[in-house]
């Protein structure tokens, strides 16, 4: 017992030490010097930027006559951000669900009786796993860049660029969640004669649903952030306004945009948590 405890503590120490050494090595490779963070020049500008956090702008810092009121314009770009995220998720969730369904073996009928069907299902299984891995291994921004260079900028292309990796990620997590849950209800249904599909739909899916829903909400939140980032490659979301404000050193306006994004993320997080609680009981 004592020896086991010691080994446990020893490998904990080894893990921590390993991570710390790796981090220091990486810092050295990147040439990170903590002193540079506290150099006089950076401190001034950083101080100016972060002190603006305490007084976010409520109107334009350099008002242009005839422009839309600042808060209204900010709110509109926030809504556009939400819209872009919802569109991307509207494509990604069905695609991800379909992919994860094909990548899971939980709904397969008894394959001992259907040889040919088994081969086909296995082929489908590996193809969808490979598609999942490929789709998510390329970052959404790179998909966006590829689409922009290949055809040009449009909102459809941007939505699809986000939806491709997102369906891969959703499919991966959905299928992991389907694997993780206990199979007893599913097996009970099968033992009284339910087919593979029915046992999957009524025995396994309801159990995994709360997890699936809350992960989908988390992903919607990620989609919001991605939508903001796509403002930097030209789609007019809140990120676009952040970039414009930054070009003119309007730090207080930037903080307003960041706080709005935070409010939306917090709202979605709260909504998702509430739904999860209801589904679990």
């Amino acid at each position: 017992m004592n020896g086991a405890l010691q080994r446990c503590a020893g490998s904990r120490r080894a893990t921590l030490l390993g991570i710390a050494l790796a981090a220091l090595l990486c810092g050295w490779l990147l040439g990170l010097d903590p002193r540079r963070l506290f150099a006089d020049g950076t401190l001034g500008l950083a101080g100016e930027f972060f002190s603006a956090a305490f007084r976010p702008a409520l109107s334009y810092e350099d008002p242009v006559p005839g422009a839309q009121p600042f808060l209204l314009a900010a709110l509109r770009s926030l809504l556009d951000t939400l819209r872009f995220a919802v569109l991307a998720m509207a494509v990604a969730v069905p695609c991800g669900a379909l992919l994860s369904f094909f990548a899971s073996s939980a709904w397969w009928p008894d394959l001992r009786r259907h040889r040919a069907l088994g081969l086909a299902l296995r082929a489908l299984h590996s193809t969808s796993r490979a598609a999942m891995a490929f789709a998510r291994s390329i970052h959404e921004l790179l998909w966006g860049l590829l689409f922009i260079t290949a055809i040009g900028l449009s909102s459809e292309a941007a939505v699809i660029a986000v939806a491709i990796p997102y369906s891969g990620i959703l499919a991966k997590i959905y299928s992991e969640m389907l694997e993780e849950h206990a199979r007893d209800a599913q097996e009970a249904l099968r033992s009284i004669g339910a087919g593979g599909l029915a046992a999957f739909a009524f025995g396994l899916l309801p159990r995994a649903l709360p997890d699936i829903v809350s992960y989908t909400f988390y992903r919607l939140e990620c989609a919001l952030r991605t939508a903001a980032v796509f403002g930097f490659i030209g789609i007019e979301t809140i990120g676009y306004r952040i970039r414009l404000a930054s070009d003119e050193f309007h730090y207080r306006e930037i903080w307003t945009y960041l706080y709005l994004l935070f409010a939306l993320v917090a709202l979605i997080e709260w909504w998702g948590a509430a739904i999860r609680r209801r589904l679990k009981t």
Partner: protein
Amino acid sequence: MEHAATAPEPGPARVAELRRSRPRSPLLRFSALAGVALLVWAWAAGDIYESHLTAEQKGANLDRFLAKLTPAPVRESGDWSDFAPWAVRLLGEGRGAEAVLLTFALATAAAALSGVFALIFLPGAARNLANPDPLGIRGGRGGLAAAGWHAVSRCTRAFFVFTRSLPEYVLGFLLISVLGPDPWALVLALAVHNFGILGRLGAGVGENTPPGPARPVVAHGGGRLGAYLSALLPASFNRMVVYFFYRWETCVREATVLGMLGVVSLGYLITDAKSGRAFDQMVFFVLLGALIVLAGDLLSALVRRWLRYERT
């Protein structure tokens, strides 16, 4: 036995009764309606960005892109054996290998930094610790102190959500405009966002760890910090490290694009190739990025499995 005697007769009436008494939640109904409304609005409200490109222009763009997609030496000689030397040159002189290394370094440094700060802040967010009665042991102080502890937990949680809501790329852009083109900007951008996520996940782990060994520490006057450091943290160590590697994996993915902001990492080479209209190189580096992400996923999955099965 009485229960069995009063069991209702099966039949349509019973089915209707069961149907009436099924659990119903106004929240779920409202959410479903709101979700549908959100979808309809998102589809119906028109383009977010109005593209001025006609179909022909898009077609021409696509042709130009596809024509330049095969690696330049292969395009000239028509022989795919020229591919390997070209790829090696891109990795060496083209700085591909260096960018791969720096991408991993960026992710690791940022993940470690966010992990350290998350460990420091998470006891403030764990509701079982930041509580007037830590781990269910009566603290014996009322009123103001109790309200204070609830405020600490609320504020730390809000702070986590706030840092989490900041997208890495936007943060990187802002920090570069403040700090200049310095790798610190990208490391901090990744670290701030992941700090929020790791903090929240870690607080959840802390709350779900069985409080058995930690309670005597509090009962003997060890305090909240003592209970956290000596009992809760060691007991939940593996799960914390699992989360760390899970975030490291997403850091690697994000680090591939942060270079688009102009410093180190693969993203820089990709935008550079794009602006030079060298689409073959651009796609090469994008695929190299995909390889990095897959390698990161694989490594992290191996470590997580090892932590789950070997040492629990």
